[in-house]
């Protein structure tokens, strides 16, 4: 467990939670990134504006943390084009079909004790872990 960073994980988690609570108390909305992105790209009313604002804030907040030296200086992403495209398609399609992702189900939904979100979180955690297992310990060896 040499890379385990419990303190920065907890602090970052609290910031994520505060951001989610702000969106709920101010705008009355769940901070579910897949739903916000999915609806921002197919605008059906004036609400696309706050959605784009939230998404811009996500990038800006990460940039500020990086510049302040409290986030990673660099990130490690796979360079495999098929993995990036296939993974992106599955994440986009799956989160819309399943009505949520790690933020909407995994944080906001669990906080509401929603049975749907509990099921969704268990399922995507399990299939994510199974996928990594196959990639790293079966195929990747």
């Amino acid at each position, binding site marked *: 467990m040499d890379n385990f960073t419990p303190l920065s*994980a907890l*602090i970052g988690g609290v910031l994520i939670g505060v951001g*989610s609570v702000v969106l709920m108390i101010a705008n009355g909305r769940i901070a579910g990134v897949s739903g916000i992105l999915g609806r921002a790209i197919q605008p059906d009313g004036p609400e696309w504006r706050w959605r784009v604002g*939230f*998404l811009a804030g996500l990038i800006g907040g990460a940039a500020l943390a990086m510049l302040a030296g409290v986030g990673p200086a660099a990130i490690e992403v796979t360079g495999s084009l098929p993995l990036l495209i296939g993974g*992106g398609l599955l994440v986009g399609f799956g989160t819309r079909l399943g009505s949520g992702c790690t933020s909407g189900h995994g944080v906001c939904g669990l*906080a509401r004790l929603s049975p749907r979100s509990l099921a*969704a979180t268990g399922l995507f955690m399990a*299939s*994510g872990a199974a996928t990594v297992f196959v990639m790293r310990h079966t195929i990747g060896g």
Partner: protein
Amino acid sequence: MRQIFWAILAGLLFGAGLAVSQMANPAKVLAFLDVGAIPAGGWDPSLAFVMAGALVVTFFGFAIARRRERPLAADAFDFPSRRDIDARLVAGSVLFGVGWGLVGYCPGPAIASLAWGRVETVVFVLAMIAGMVIWRRTLGTTTETPVNAR
């Protein structure tokens, strides 16, 4: 206008949290999903601590929100009301998990980590948007969200 201000503030906090917790780094997320590394001692449980920190705040924060009559800048709280576990929820969550495990990106960190300016992130985000568009044109429903903007 007020809604946009609050959404930007919420996004800034959320994005900063993803960076501080290192969840914007896919390698960090994959290290959590790699439960096969537990026997060798290489597993990284950090993601569980991120969720724990976020859950404590949202649990009490949402409870406070529910005691209010209405949000600061909108007409009503839009808490999801469905409780049924249907085939769409199950299939979608499983497919999402596979994509998550392939790259280590879920939607929030993928968007936030555009801040690092990597072309790989741009490719993933474009593919993710394409996946959302495909959903919309095939199995998509339009009755999901009530509009309560003002």
